[in-house]
């Protein structure tokens, strides 16, 4: 973990609702691992006291990219970032996904909306290929499907309105696949998305006796484990305890997470 002033080297829309911000970060980028995140100070948001956490979408040499959607005043202000603007970054933060999957298992990535971003970074680092299940509200919320296909991954899509792929939750597509394939190629899950989706993936993993690595999202304060804002109830060596999502996560194995909401 370090603090570094990055420079904007790219800031482009991805479809109508999303943007990719690329920063030159020679200190942070080369040591970043899939599943880790960066904490950005949005200088354009003058009265903000908190940084904003973003999972890492891709790393290319000294360049690090995040994929974001405008969901609040922080991301709204970020839209004004221009080429060559400086951005203060703390990172890489948290623990990443494991990137090795035992031979007998198929990596099964499950994404909700732009939760697909860190899974793309993961897929690029994995030596084996697998399948991505990605769900979203409508077709424009399904991102990077072709990029995964270009890496040799199978992609299955689900949308709430049926405008792309199967209609319904991503678990509809996932369950159909599991029924046909889980016996001969047991899955190891890697998931990023809303809590309901994470819990659903975790439940399937526990039932099937497979592993599921879940990327949790909680409102964070400091990002480094100091403030204890983003705690999650977990089971550690059989004991219930509070883990800091920013420092002890954000990746947790499904069996360790105790869902309360």
């Amino acid at each position, binding site marked *: *973990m*370090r*603090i570094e002033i990055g420079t904007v080297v790219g800031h482009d829309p991805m479809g109508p609702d999303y943007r990719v911000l690329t920063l030159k970060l020679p200190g942070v980028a080369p040591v970043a691992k899939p599943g880790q995140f960066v904490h950005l*100070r949005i200088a354009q948001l003058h*009265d*903000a*006291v*908190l*940084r904003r956490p973003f999972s890492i979408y891709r790393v290319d040499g000294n360049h690090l990219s995040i994929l974001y959607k405008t969901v609040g005043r922080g991301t709204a202000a970020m839209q004004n970032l221009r080429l060559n603007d400086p951005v*203060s970054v*703390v990172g890489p933060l948290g623990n990443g996904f494991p990137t090795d999957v035992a031979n007998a298992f198929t990596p099964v990535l499950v994404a909700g909306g732009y939760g697909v971003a860190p899974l793309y970074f993961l897929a690029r680092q994995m030596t084996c290929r697998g399948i991505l299940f990605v769900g979203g509200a409508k077709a424009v919320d399904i991102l990077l499907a072709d990029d995964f296909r270009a890496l040799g991954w199978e992609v299955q899509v689900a949308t709430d309105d049926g405008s792309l792929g199967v209609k319904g939750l991503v678990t509809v597509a996932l369950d159909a696949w599991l029924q046909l394939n889980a016996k001969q190629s047991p899955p190891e899950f890697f998931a990023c998305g809303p809590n309901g989706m994470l819990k659903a993936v975790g439940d399937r993993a526990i039932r099937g006796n497979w592993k599921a690595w879940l990327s949790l999202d*909680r*409102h964070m*304060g*400091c*990002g*480094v*484990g*100091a*403030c*204890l*804002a*983003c*705690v*999650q109830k977990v089971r550690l060596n059989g004991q219930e305890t*509070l883990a800091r999502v920013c*420092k002890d996560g954000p990746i947790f194995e499904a069996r360790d997470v105790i869902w309360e909401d």
Partner: protein
Amino acid sequence: MKPTLDINLAGIRMKNPVMVASGTFGYGPEYADLVDLNKLGAIVVKGISLEPWGGNRTPRMVEVSGGLINAIGLQNPGVKGFTEKYMPFLRQYDVAVIVNIWGKTQDEYAEVAARFDGVEGVHALEINISCPNVKAGGSSFGTNLESTAKVVAAVRARTKLPIIPKLAPNVSDIGAFAKVCVDNGADALSLINSFPAMAIDIETRRPILANVSGGLSGPAIHPIAVKLVYEAAKAVKVPLIALGGITSAKEAIEFMIAGASAVAVGTANFTEPLTALNVISGLSDYLDRHNMNSVQELVRSIRI
């Protein structure tokens, strides 16, 4: 010649008067990769109670205009957990360690204080009688003169370490609280804690924090804190540690002119972890520019 920044605050020797505030810097290791702890005046660790404590439900924090509201609820590993897990780490550094303590009862405060007596590397105790986020303890003590007096006296009776009550801002006469702390044995005072505050989601009409309300900190509270420090400085002679909304040397200097001997950076650690270090260098530059040889010339230097 560079102005001297070192101070002796109620027997606590610090290389500069800039500390990091309880609850905003963890127990030290969390920020050690980003901030050279040896450069800080002191680290005030997150509040410790007799036994481990789980704190409040989430959400525990929300950003608002010019600050944040938190209701962490004093989650901590307890005296034993803290001492075993974090003191060996902190002892590696040449920095004053001030342990913030709290209890659910007066006896618990005193017992926690006693347990820290003689723990190597602990330089002082800050008594949290002003946390707005716990039902028992915290500001239920610090907003009542009589219970403030009792808690401070009870802690005083059980420790030889310098004790620093941390005052609540939401009282009608801060001077009276400052005085009652000093009369009962306080060596210095910290002021102020966060302000009771609340934020509501207007779509759901529910409070944003699980605890319903919390404590407001950050730049929004700074001018209010300056006034409270100014009032407390008129009431007592002991050294004051001022905190509330410091983001740069400017706010720290304001506090010192108003009456503080030292300052603590809190919420700004989250925004910019290097804030305390920037305050130290900015303070040095300011003294230089104003031809002061020592930071002590700045303390209580207000011209009315």
